[in-house]
């Protein structure tokens, strides 16, 4: 075993030239060959890269898809997002545990199958879904699980277990995935016809400053959700001093319920890459990095192929877009499973081969980003829109949407509606209009912007989807009339507890404490005082946390307390000044079992 580990580690580390910034790739490749990165493997990686063992372990233990213990020849990662739960995840999970013969979080004794929960994998419109060795399985049910487990026990290759393929490029030879695009509504910006190469040509015909000016005219703001003006970001980056500049694309859409970037990557990658090249031209970069979430590994070969095609067409490479002296290329950096890496500075840390912890600001990435150079990090959709703006003009773009929120927005719609999928809508569209489009008229609540966004009820369905009202990076989850809203909130809070990076105290501890208090209320032991405390604790976590994760993680509770207070009121003990979850009988069970006696509680309550 030891010699095998040495051989594998040496081979992988050498393949990456002992480059510290490739540690994620190294760990991934070692795990692919050894089934995990145990203490010995970590120590060997550390020794051969001349870093300390704890730094390697720090990376291995940070990311969801890395493991110190064997994950099984077939590792099943079953999505646990709320939409998966709405669509029968519990039954699917039970089928897996029954048939595989191990619990979630475990690997079968023979090491064949490992079962794991995982945060949203970007398939919310086709849940329940799972990743098995990186291959996506959608719309799972008991029958499908039976055949999958049968195939695993028969030793079948995972790729061969995929029987039907989805629509569009999901059928291409390099993808061959059962994933569906479900593009329900095309708009003028993202999914309109696009002639590859044209946008970059138009861009390089202008000066970089003029390209930035065009973006400023368009009023485009970041599509990831935070909404920073893109033109301004590019300008800051361009003006920042540095030996080189970088363009990074954030393809780490991890907000539960969003999957629109997955569809762009599948159906419009050329538009995206051209947008990145335009960004490169504007800020003065010669290299771009596509940071692709590990969940979308199944698209990697296909995307590499698209990049090759663009190089052949000189959209990328030397004198890109025919502009003499403008050399620009794009590399793909895979993530490894961490929601926090959607935060731009955490993404940069991760792309540099480190734990994906956000950085302190200042300095901002535009000053000091990837590898210490000025870097612009933008969303997948933002780059696509930028390319379109260069083609159609800033004024054209600005003519759509609202004054503060120009253009269109891709939204990923899932949950209780008839037509889940991707919609390109104009900013300013009301929730009600969207509900009609997606046929989700019976909605009791709509989660706009994912768990970190806002949960609105009927009285707010007239509100508009845009930065200055209901902002969203793309996630829209429809919650039907029969759903237990507190269960939804609970799912979201568990997500944040799992996905907090743990760096800062209020987010690390605060989210657990919020979840704790929520459970107390859900279990019928809440008081009016608990509701007040819950509100006050939300404010503490939001105010004191270091990055956007902790600053928004209390939102599931905060926004439902605001918009659905009656749901909480119905659960609490009105008039009680104190209640506790402490249960004497339950708390003596274990000691009585061990001592072999029957609990005898003889006091009146």
């Amino acid at each position, binding site marked *: 075993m030891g010699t095998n580990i040495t051989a594998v580690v040496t081979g992988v580390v050498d393949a990456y030239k002992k480059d510290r910034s490739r540690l994620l790739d190294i760990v991934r490749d070692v795990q692919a060959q050894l089934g995990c990165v145990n203490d010995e493997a970590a120590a060997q990686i550390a020794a051969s890269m001349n870093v*300390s063992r704890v730094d390697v372990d720090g990376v291995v233990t940070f990311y969801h898809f890395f493991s110190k213990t064997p994950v099984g020849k077939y590792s099943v990662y079953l999505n646990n997002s709320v939409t998966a739960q709405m669509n029968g995840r519990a039954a699917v999970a039970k089928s897996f545990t029954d048939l595989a013969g191990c619990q979630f979080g475990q690997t079968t004794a023979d090491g064949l199958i490992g079962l794991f929960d995982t945060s949203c994998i970007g398939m919310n419109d086709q849940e329940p879904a799972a990743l098995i060795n990186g291959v996506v399985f959608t719309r799972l049910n008991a029958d499908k699980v039976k055949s999958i487990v049968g195939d695993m026990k028969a030793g079948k290759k995972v790729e061969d277990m995929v029987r039907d393929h989805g629509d569009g490029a999901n059928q291409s030879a390099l993808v061959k995935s059962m994933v569906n695009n479900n593009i329900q509504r095309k708009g003028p910006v993202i999914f309109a016809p696009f002639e590859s190469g044209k946008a970059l040509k138009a861009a390089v015909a202008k000066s970089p400053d003029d390209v930035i000016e065009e973006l400023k005219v368009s009023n485009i703001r970041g599509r990831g959700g935070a909404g920073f003006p893109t033109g301004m970001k590019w300008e800051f980056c361009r003006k920042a001093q540095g030996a080189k500049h970088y363009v990074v694309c954030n393809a780490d859409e991890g907000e539960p319920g969003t999957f629109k970037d997955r569809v762009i990557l599948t159906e419009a990658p050329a538009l995206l890459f051209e947008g990145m090249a335009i960004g490169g031209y504007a800020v003065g970069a010669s290299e771009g990095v596509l940071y692709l979430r590990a969940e979308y590994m199944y698209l990697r070969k296909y995307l590499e192929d698209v990049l090759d095609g663009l190089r052949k067409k000189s959209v990328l490479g030397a004198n890109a877009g025919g502009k003499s002296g403008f050399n620009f290329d794009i590399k793909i950096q895979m993530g490894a499973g961490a929601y926090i890496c959607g935060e731009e500075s955490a993404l940069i840390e991760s792309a540099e081969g480190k734990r994906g912890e956000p950085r302190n600001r200042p300095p901002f990435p535009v000053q000091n980003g990837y590898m210490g150079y000025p870097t612009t990090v933008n969303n997948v959709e933002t780059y696509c829109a930028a390319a379109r703006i260069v083609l159609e003009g800033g004024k054209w773009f600005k003519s759509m949407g609202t004054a503060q929120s120009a253009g269109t927005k891709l939204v990923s719609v899932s949950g209780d509606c008839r037509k889940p999928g991707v919609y390109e809508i104009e900013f300013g569209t009301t929730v009600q209009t969207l509900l009609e489009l997606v046929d989700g008229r019976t909605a009791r609540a709509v989660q706009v912007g994912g768990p970190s966004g806002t949960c609105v009820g009927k009285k707010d369905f007239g509100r508009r989807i845009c930065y200055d009202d209901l902002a969203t990076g793309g996630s829209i989850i429809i919650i039907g009339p029969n759903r237990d809203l507190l269960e939804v909130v609970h799912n979201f809070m568990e997500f944040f507890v799992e996905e907090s990076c743990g760096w800062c105290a209020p987010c690390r*501890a605060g989210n657990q404490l919020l979840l704790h208090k929520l459970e107390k209320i859900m279990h019928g032991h809440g008081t009016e005082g608990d509701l007040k405390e819950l509100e006050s604790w939300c404010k503490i976590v939001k105010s004191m946390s270091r990055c956007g994760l902790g600053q928004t993680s209390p939102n599931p509770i905060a926004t439902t307390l605001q918009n659905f207070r009656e749901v909480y009121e119905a659960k609490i003990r009105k008039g009680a000044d104190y209640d506790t979850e402490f249960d004497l009988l339950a708390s003596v069970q274990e000691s009585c079992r061990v001592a072999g006696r029957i609990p005898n509680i003889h006091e009146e309550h």
Partner: protein
Amino acid sequence: MSELQFTIDGKDCKAKSGQTIVEAARENGIYIPTLCNFQGMKPAGTCRICTVKVAGRYQAACTTPAAPGMIVESNTPEIEDMRKAIVEMLFVEGNHMCPTCEKSGNCELQALGYRYTMLAPRFPYLWPVREVDAHAPKIYLDRNRCVQCLRCVRGIVTGDGKHVFALSQRGNKVGIDIDAQLAAGLSEDQAKKAMDQCPVGAILRKEIGFAVPIGRRKYDGKPIGSEV
């Protein structure tokens, strides 16, 4: 270095350009409570106790540089209560048994508890299961008491630049890991430094302890921050 002017709670302050709000406040005789911050180390901003309000936004004063004309709110009842809440969070998310801890009386977390007159935390105790690592010959690491300030991660590095301590896991499972091999090579000075830099009793020197009697320890008589 140029000098700039700003205010904290209405008081005019001067700062050198590049100085953080925490540093500048100290030089102007204003105490902003800190825990993870340590003079001479790059600020980490993990504890957030130094959070202040600048132009309506909450920011950590240890990572935010003072800027000309900046208006900082620090000692307001709202902010002070949120700081106290963080101290309480740190108490409940670990296992802080002050009566058993030899850092008691010299512990910065405890001292903040005293400063904020924490009688009982508003939060329920979480009782995490955390391991004690006593492999290193000169020090032991008691994770029960750790507040993840990262002072050890930042401060204790080998001659060739390797981390002896690093963060492991994420979220509520996050904890300090110690590199056994590198820890075995710690010098007397480094071991002492590791203990002295730890604000709590998570890193302690083996074979010594309880040198100062109760009543004469650092925070027995005077609150943390009273030197400012």
